[in-house]
């Protein structure tokens, strides 16, 4: 065992029931008091490794040493007792409870048989003070912003005595301002002797905050480096195994006629709260209109309405001038709308069906693929084969069930289907969420390609980098409304966007009108 190691994982192997070898003899070690980055493409095995550490998965082989002695971790409870805490990518909080209640849940201070609320509040306050993680102990979780929820998650782990904190893509849901704040807290934690594992895709952040970097690729550990000694390009080369083009090459847009026209669209919750509040905009052929915004500000609802999965309560929607408000998904598809859904596992694929069956879902009734009674099996197979080839889907055969593929390849199945249907409008909602760098590059290139061939593209993304580098025009959503619009997406800074996304700034209606046209 090497000097000063707090955690040592040796030869971890994990195979999932669907046959995916997620970890293949992985060695991973963390020194006491460092912030250690764990990076890799999606599907490289980072999350699996951390799930093993936290007792959420049982490894098929391998050993874990913590503070010098071997540890058998079979449940999260055991991991927490040993001093290992995890902040998940999706927060595990009860929205109707207060900040304090969430933090002390399970380790509540008591007065006799009763819950001692005052002591709990003061405990939380003290803890927040000590680590510079400011939260409002009396607020309900559902009323506080994402950034504060994350602090609650961190405090939860700290209260349980976590010395080693695992942060799974903590900045994925944060605005630039919130990210800066988080980093300040992490540095404070480090100063007080805590050790952190920082899982991330964003190499800039990794460079900024970590001491050492472990890089995983294809289920194996491919290198450990001191952060100070490597550049972002070095890390990304290690991750992907080759040079990647992170900047998108985009020829200038030549916008044509309007394909999609949205006019004062509105949607309400059963309680009467507006989810969409008079949203209007249009997308022209040959341009990419980007929608930026913190998640949960109406973007998902907008997409659901545009694709027929949800009914609007007011407003109208036209495709190439034809009124089609609240049409069924099949009708909209026939008008040339294609859709890369936000949640590919829910809407994008049927995981137990073969790749070729997934590729044909939107077009099976067309005469090319189905005769009067029987399917044209040969045509289906040959089309599927060529799509698999064109879109680089790594699979044994088009008959392989989708569940056997990695996240990036599943997304490529979705993209292949949606791009090959001769669309007039492509609605891409988080098109590269949770896919590896290689697939991101590929999907970005395809998006630009299809757009410049004369298709209108509506891009919704929580990844500022993505939405800024791909879009020609840009809108910002906040609270179910368009609060800002930029007719030239290159002319905006990340910081400025952040202010609009947080609702701190909003444009005047005159300025907005110009960008919406």
């Amino acid at each position, binding site marked *: 065992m090497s000097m000063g190691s707090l955690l040592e994982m040796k030869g971890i192997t994990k*195979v999932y*029931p669907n046959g995916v*070898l997620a970890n293949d003899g992985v060695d991973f070690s963390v020194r006491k008091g460092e912030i250690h980055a764990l990076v890799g493409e999606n599907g490289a095995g980072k999350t699996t490794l951390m799930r093993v550490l936290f007792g959420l998965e049982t490894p098929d082989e391998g050993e874990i040493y913590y503070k010098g002695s071997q540890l058998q971790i079979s449940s999260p409870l055991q991991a927490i007792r040993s001093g290992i805490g995890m902040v998940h990518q999706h927060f595990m909080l009860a929205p109707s409870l207060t900040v304090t209640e969430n933090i002390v849940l399970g380790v509540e201070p008591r007065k006799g048989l009763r819950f001692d609320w005052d002591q709990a509040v003061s405990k939380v306050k003290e803890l927040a003070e000590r680590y510079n993680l400011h939260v409002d102990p009396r607020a309900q979780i559902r009323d506080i912003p994402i950034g504060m929820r994350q602090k609650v998650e961190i405090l939860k782990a700290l209260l349980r005595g976590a010395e080693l904190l695992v942060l799974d893509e903590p900045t994925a849901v944060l605005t630039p301002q919130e990210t800066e704040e988080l980093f300040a807290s992490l540095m404070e934690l480090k100063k007080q002797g805590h050790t952190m594992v920082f899982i991330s895709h964003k190499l800039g952040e990794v460079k900024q905050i970590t001491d050492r970097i472990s890089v995983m690729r294809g289920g194996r550990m491919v290198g450990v480096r001191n952060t100070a000694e490597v550049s972002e390009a070095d890390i990304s080369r290690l991750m992907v195994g080759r040079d990647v083009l992170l900047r998108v090459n985009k020829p200038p847009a030549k916008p044509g006629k309007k394909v999609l026209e949205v006019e004062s669209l509105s949607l309400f919750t059963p309680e009467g709260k507006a989810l969409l509040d008079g949203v209007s905009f249009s997308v022209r052929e040959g341009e990419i209109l980007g929608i930026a915004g913190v998640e949960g500000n109406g973007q998902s609802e907008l997409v659901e309405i545009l694709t027929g999965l949800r009914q609007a309560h007011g407003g109208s929607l036209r495709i190439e001038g034809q009124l089609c408000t609240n049409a069924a998904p099949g009708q909209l598809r026939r008008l040339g709308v294609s859709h890369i859904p936000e949640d590919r596992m829910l809407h994008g694929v049927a995981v137990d069906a073969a790749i070729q069956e997934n590729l044909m879902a939107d077009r*099976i009734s067309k005469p090319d693929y189905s005769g009067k009674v*029987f399917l044209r099996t040969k045509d289906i197979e040959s089309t599927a084969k060529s799509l698999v080839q064109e879109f680089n889907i790594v699979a044994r055969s088009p008959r392989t069930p989708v569940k056997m593929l990695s996240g990036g*390849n599943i997304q490529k199945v979705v993209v292949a289907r949606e791009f090959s249907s001769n669309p007039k409008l492509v609605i891409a909602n988080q098109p590269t969420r949770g896919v590896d760098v290689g697939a991101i590059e590929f999907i970005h290139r395809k998006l630009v390609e299809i757009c410049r061939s004369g298709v209108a593209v509506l891009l919704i993304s929580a990844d500022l980098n993505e939405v800024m580098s791909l879009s020609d025009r840009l809108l910002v959503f906040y609270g179910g409304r368009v609060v800002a619009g930029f007719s030239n997406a290159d002319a905006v800074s990340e910081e400025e966007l952040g202010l609009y996304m947080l609702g701190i700034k909003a444009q005047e209606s005159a300025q907005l009108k110009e960008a919406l046209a």
Partner: protein
Amino acid sequence: MIRRDLVFEIGRTLIAIALALLLGFVIVLLVSEEPFNAFINFVAGPLTTTRRIGNWIEATIPLIFTGLAVCIAFQAGQFNIGAEGQLFFGAVTATIVALTFQLPMYLHVLVALLGAMVGGAIAGAIPGIMKARWGANELVSSLMLNYVFYRLGLYLINYHYRDSSAGAMVSYRLPETSWLQQFWPPTRVHWGLWVALAAILFSYLFLYRTRWGYALRMTGLNKDFAAYAGISVSAVIIYSQVISGAIAGLAGAADVLGLYRRFQWQQLPGYGFDGIIIAILARNHPLGVPIAALFLAYVRSGASIMSRMSDVSAEMVAIIQGIMILLVTAQAFLAKWRHRSVVREAKKHGLNA
């Protein structure tokens, strides 16, 4: 399904059957004075005479229909606990059609079978429409409708088509032109067997070779995905239940037109619930249905022979059935064994290969 999974599922089913039979034998050993005689009658009995082989095949025919009916509903992600009522009502409508029309030989059978399909389809359509239009849980509605169609069927037969000269509550005798002919004397094996084979072929082609079957399977695998892709999920729910009901209706017609030649049920025959067992054993695949139906019918007729030839009662078979279903449906049963082969293969091929 990929080959490894297929081999695993077949192996798992066979082991489950073997274990269930073993346990059955142990029980016989405990309760019987002549355990070996009883067990040999159970295991080999159905094959000892031509008539017994015939009984086995006769019993298989309705089970094939109800097994297929449940398969189709299951593949659409729907339950059909109503096959029982559908087949009962199908038998009633077949009887009514056979008694009402006077037609030449082959045509009359066909029309009577069609009548059964229409009756079953109506009974199946109701839970389908209720689910598609109002979101009514088809599990509950199809189960409840069993009793509705049971009583409705009895009313129609007892009050309108009852043969008062017969000593029991039965319908008039059906005209010979409407019979499914028995073709293998001395057994009662009848043309219904060929109809069953046709239904298997139809179900397979429909599910795997037509766009409607494709839409049905995608809806069953992930209905959000199906809706997203432009498939009309409510249409699928309705037509899957209609087709399922129509096939279930044939099960009733097969027994009435092929075996009894008059309507004589006063109770629900139970084939509808057997259909669920068969669909589970066949993993919802139409080509697995005849094998599962033959197997279930074999166990049943073995048990009935055993009860006649020894001191063990036929209900013993219910225990064997229960254990089998339990083991087959338990996802984790033998999963470790499979996982080890998965690990081995994964390491050989590397990531995601």
